[in-house]
């Protein structure tokens, strides 16, 4: 492929280039098409079921009729409690890694642990939740057990996102603060964290979307197929959207199609909406950077 290529080889090269472009474009489209097709299908078949009544009423007749309100409320409980646990731990863990930890074997072990926490299969998290929270700590099958399991599972999401935005704050800001006698924590509290809000928010939002969609970790730790009342404390069992979709599509006979599709649409809609918000926030705040 020298500079003095003949025109024949140049043409051939041009053809390969074109072919490569078309193939790669095709591959990418092949990925995007299913997403669009699936979303379209869900909307097409699920939309007829959507109504205020569907959203805000309880399932009846062995879940073959009625709505999904208890599942929505349950998902909110699970997400809220798990967020309350994982957000502070995750943000502070990221602060430790980015602001305090040096480049030592010890830090590498922590990084490895985070990678593994993210990589452990969800069903193993479920077994852990059963062994640790349900049985050992005797929280029983409850919102608390399920949320703790979800919180630990989604911790890496918050850590990664927070850490990335902390490291985007210029080192010179920290030095300027130290120079005037601000302590490490004061510097973090008053300069580093306020300027990393975008990344922290993104992490929190992704955590919410992740926790809302998970099913395996909550099946045995706190979610139930059907609970006739709304949860009133973290010690109750609860229904959840993801679990409800699983139940409707595999455990219950004769569920009208639109109820299952409607549930799936609500779950996907929720997750997509949350992700959309995170994308908007990210680009907004990036544009409004203070430096």
């Amino acid at each position, binding site marked *: 492929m020298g500079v003095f290529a003949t025109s024949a080889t140049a043409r051939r090269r041009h053809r390969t280039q074109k072919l490569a472009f078309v193939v790669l474009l095709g591959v990418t489209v092949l990925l995007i098409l299913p997403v669009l097709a699936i979303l379209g299908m869900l909307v097409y078949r699920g939309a007829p079921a959507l109504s205020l009544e569907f959203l805000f009423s309880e399932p009846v007749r062995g879940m073959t009729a009625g709505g999904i309100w208890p599942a929505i409320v349950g998902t909110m409980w699970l997400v809220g409690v798990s967020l309350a646990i994982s957000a502070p731990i995750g943000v502070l863990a990221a602060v430790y890694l980015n602001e305090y930890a040096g480049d030592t074997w010890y830090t590498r072990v922590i990084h490895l642990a985070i990678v593994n926490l993210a990589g452990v299969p969800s069903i193993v998290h479920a077994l852990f939740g059963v*062994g640790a929270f349900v049985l050992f700590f005797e929280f029983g099958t409850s919102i608390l057990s399920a949320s703790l399991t979800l919180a630990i599972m989604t911790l890496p999401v918050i850590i990664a996102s927070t850490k990335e935005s902390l490291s985007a704050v210029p080192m010179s800001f920290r030095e300027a603060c130290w120079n005037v006698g601000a302590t490490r924590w004061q510097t973090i509290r008053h300069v580093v964290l306020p300027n990393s809000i975008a990344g922290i928010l993104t992490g929190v939002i992704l955590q919410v979307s992740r926790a809302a969609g998970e099913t395996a970790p909550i099946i045995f730790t706190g979610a139930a197929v059907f609970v006739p009342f709304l949860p009133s404390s973290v010690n109750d069992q609860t229904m959840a959207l993801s679990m409800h979709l699983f139940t409707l599509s595999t455990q219950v006979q004769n569920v009208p199609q639109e109820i299952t599709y409607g549930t799936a649409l609500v779950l996907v809609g929720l997750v997509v909406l949350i992700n959309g918000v995170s994308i908007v926030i990210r680009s907004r705040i990036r544009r409004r950077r203070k430096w």
Partner: protein
Amino acid sequence: MSREEVEGAGANPGAELGTGLGPRLGRSPARQRLHRAKELLIETVIRVCGVSAVIFVFGIFYFVFREAAPLLFGGLDLGELLTSGEWYPDSDNPRYGAFALIAGTLAVTLLAMLIAVPLGLGAAIFVSEFSRGRTREILKIVIELLAAIPSVVWGFIGLVIMNPLIIDLFDTPVGLNVLNGAILLALMSVPIIVSIGEDALKAVPDTYREAAEAMGATRWQVTWRVLLPAARNGLLAAVLLGVGRAVGETMAVLMATGHSVNVPDSPLDSVRTITATIASELGETAQGSDHYRVLFVLGSLLFLITFLVNLTADLVIRGFKRR
């Protein structure tokens, strides 16, 4: 030490405008001590949170292993578990041979990777090298959406969309099989492969691209001859993380692979993976029974497999970051 510590100095330091310095302002010694104690407390909390991930990973292993141990050291034939295909946990004379489950997991993962690796790496190359600006942003957002769809929804799609589709296309009686699960797993693993793969390509210095293009190479030649070899390790790590994701995926394969314990001969056979077995049987077992414990043994096995896959991927990534 000759420093004045004046709290809320009465005299306005502004009175000495121009040349002088005001008094050094600060807390009284008692309040300073309190302040220091508060900071020490916060920093201790930060340090504890810092190691939390390590504690949790150990915790996961400990609590899963703890439930598995009595059986593991009390009569379980590990050889049988790994090689026998006889999985009859409910019978009067229970047999715990998980070979079919392992084979099912391997079959689905392998086929999923056959689909996901070319698609994922292709898309990574396209996003990183052949698109720019708005197109690139939109592509990344769509791939992010792909990653956001919950696995139970994928399972649902496997049941209601893929199943009839496969029955029609391949003229088989059941569409819940290896192929169905593999396609879902492929779509679920692709986002990881794309994002890690794109990172790996981005890590190749632009000077490589410029040098090759200056010699008259086309974009594709640059990619094929320069970027791919240079990003080899990162792309390998991307594939490994995709494998890790596929091995551990639960809900989608539970719903879409047909739920039959079976060593598959063809992609159209139904199977049941390790994860699906745990998910479907744990609820039916009595806590503390052998059946219950053997599921935790399988969980420990999964933990070890994904731990090794992730460790390898991390070491490989470290390799490409260092260069």
